[in-house]
């Protein structure tokens, strides 16, 4: 009985989790493998010796804070969206995007700081790994920023209304943004500890 009621409520979709949401989780698992592979390559290469030791520039830690805060603000925006508090939702969404863009700029400065402290590209694999990991992570962040820009355009161009389709789209963006933030946290902790 409850089954048929569930089916009524959710329309043609009888599932507890929306297929698109599930697909995103699967994709995140796959992307995690990319970073797992690169960080294990880091460890294998490090164990082989000829490994230059240097401290990570502080800017990368500042940046970690930036992307984590942007995750919090985006989550706040999502909650505001669900509670139909339009202005808070739009404001926090805008802040999240600005923080995301700040992350990109700060990463760039991080590379410059790295070069300034005498670790340019091609000097030693230990430095090259920092560059390579942050590049490929940034590529994933740019995907997230694209999603945020789309979310912002929708937020400011359409009449505010909480529909299932918009909620789903927001949830997908949110999940992905948390994911890239989480990956960066992992990378920075990994690189700080695994010197």
């Amino acid at each position: 009985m409850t089954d048929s009621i569930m089916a009524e409520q959710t329309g043609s979709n009888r599932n507890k989790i929306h297929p698109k949401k599930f697909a995103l989780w699967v994709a995140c698992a796959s992307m995690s493998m990319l970073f797992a592979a690169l960080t294990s390559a880091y460890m294998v290469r490090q164990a082989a010796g000829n490994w230059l030791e240097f401290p990570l520039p502080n800017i990368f830690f500042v940046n970690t804070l930036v992307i984590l805060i942007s995750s919090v603000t985006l989550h706040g925006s999502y909650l505001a969206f669900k509670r139909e508090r339009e202005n808070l939702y739009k404001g926090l969404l805008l802040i999240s995007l600005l923080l995301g863009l700040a992350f990109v700029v700060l990463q760039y400065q991080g590379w410059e700081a790295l070069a300034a402290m005498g670790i340019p590209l091609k000097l030693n694999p230990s430095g090259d790994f920092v560059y390579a990991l942050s590049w490929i992570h940034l590529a994933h962040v740019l995907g997230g920023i694209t999603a945020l820009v789309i979310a912002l355009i929708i937020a400011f161009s359409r009449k505010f209304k909480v529909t299932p389709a918009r909620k789903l789209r927001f949830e997908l963006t949110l999940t992905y943004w948390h994911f890239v933030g989480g990956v960066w946290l992992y990378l920075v902790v990994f690189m700080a500890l695994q010197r």
Partner: protein
Amino acid sequence: MATAVIQPNTVEEKLIDELGYDDHFHEHHDGDKYQSNFITTYVFSQDHKIIAKQFLITGMFWAVIGGLMSLVFRLQLGFPEESLAWLQPVLGKWIEINGEGMGSLSQEFYYALVTMHGTILVFFVLTAGLSGTFSNLLIPLMVGARDMASPLLNMMSYWFFLLAGLVMFFSLFLSTGPFSGGWTAYPPLSILPEASAGSGAGMTMWTLSLVLFVVSVLLGGINYITTVLNLRTKGMTMWRMPLPIWAFFITAIIGLLSFPVLASAFFLVMCDRELGTSFYLSEIFIGGQALDHVGGSPVLYQHLFWFLGHPEVYIIILPAMGIVSEVLSVNARKPIFGYKAMVYSILAIAFLSFIVWAHHMFMSGVNPFISNFFVIFTLIIAVPSAVKVFNWIATLYGGNIRFNPAMLFAIGFVSMFISGGLTGIFLGNSAIDIQMHDTYFVVAHFHIVMGVAAFFGMFAGVYHWFPKMYGRFMNDTLGKIHFWGTMVGAYAIFWPMHYIGMAGVPRRYYSFDIFQTFSHFAEMNKFITVAAILVFAFQVLFIINFFYSIWRGKKMTTQNPYGATTLEWTTPIKTGHGNWPGKIPAVQRWPYDYGKDGQDFIPQIMPLKEGEHDGGH
């Protein structure tokens, strides 16, 4: 609304109408807009059945190219004394003609052909052509879904594959030739442009092509997993899924976890090539000059590559195993023996596939104590594999067997898998591998177990589901000739290779004329080449049969010509958008009720009779 229009005629249609699940699919026309004209129906299609055909025919194209390449280098290996000048109009400068008018294959191009043959067959034919075709065709039809979870991503998966193929195809026409450093693309051949002719532009395009290919596999895989887990019809529990679906599902998971690792390996290759970093390159001298690459580890690449590379062989063979299980059961008119054991062995193989990669590297300077670990896990794979083989044979035992081409190829698969699997036990031992590695024994092993066997699985699938794809049957007689020619011919090619491999003849060599000890294998090499040409000719027969039957084959007159139980045979002969014209069928039982209670077969949509035992499904 629209469901009321359908007048149920057959028993199956009545059952679907009574017990099926109404998702109101035909009341809104969401998907119809993308199938409104020729372009959206046949070219940029989002329908899983059309995408399956696109994967299949593109795969066939690549199989012909890859097969022809092998014939060219086999001619050089089998008949080094004969002139290949007649190939010059096609291959141009890659045929070198000496003063006496004697033409032979350029050595550079020989390596390029071997490399391309491997890359094309492994990735484009046996991954995309096999898994892409049948996962797309069968997952929605067999689990009772209208289409994939995301038809758009599904379409993009095909177009990324086509794009990957186009890039690879263009690389064949580069003046420096395509990449020639082996399909494994080990550094330094893959990183230093000066290492060989193909290491320049050829390698750049090779990497680009494979990165596109990884994207294609990931998009497809995300869809397959999501569809299997989220879009199964009412009553289709995991333990009621047909075995091909289990195989495609696990294959997609393996692909999703291993292909990103390949992408990361390629990412570092690109950094080394384009930016001059030294992830993989150690101190290297070229022409007496030291390069400024310092401190890299080429073995690191091998670890990353084989972390994909080994699961990749299961990505190739598991779909074939799933298809074979289904075809054997249907044509033996018996339930598959040990259904759950089949599923658990797929899971065990999938798990083990991730912890055996270094058995490809026993001779790469890996610590012998670490090798022991990989030897043990490699040999343990023999256990689930043997379970599967036992179950296939037990399914055949006492069966009322129909020897149609699909069944013949399924039985042939079992034969090939046993022969090739046994030599895997030799190679999996690191001590024996000291003698065997990089010989023709390895070539024979992997061609039989994952090349020929996977092809047999693919042929079984094509012959079996051709009516579902095109509404017509392929010609049985031609199919049987195709089978016997391929079966005998494939053994004729690869059986002798075990022998010359055990004698120590190395693979990938252009010629053996300076080795006195190998000179007495010349006749055997001729034999292998002739067999290869004949087997290729039998594949031409298959292609003729395939395309002839699309338009002229015997028409399918009933929905369920084989008397099979699974859901794809409850769809109309011309299966339209959304697969079922009315409701989605609800599943009442497992898919292998053959010969139960005196009935030849009981479809999955037939409810259990009063007091009937469901066998724990």
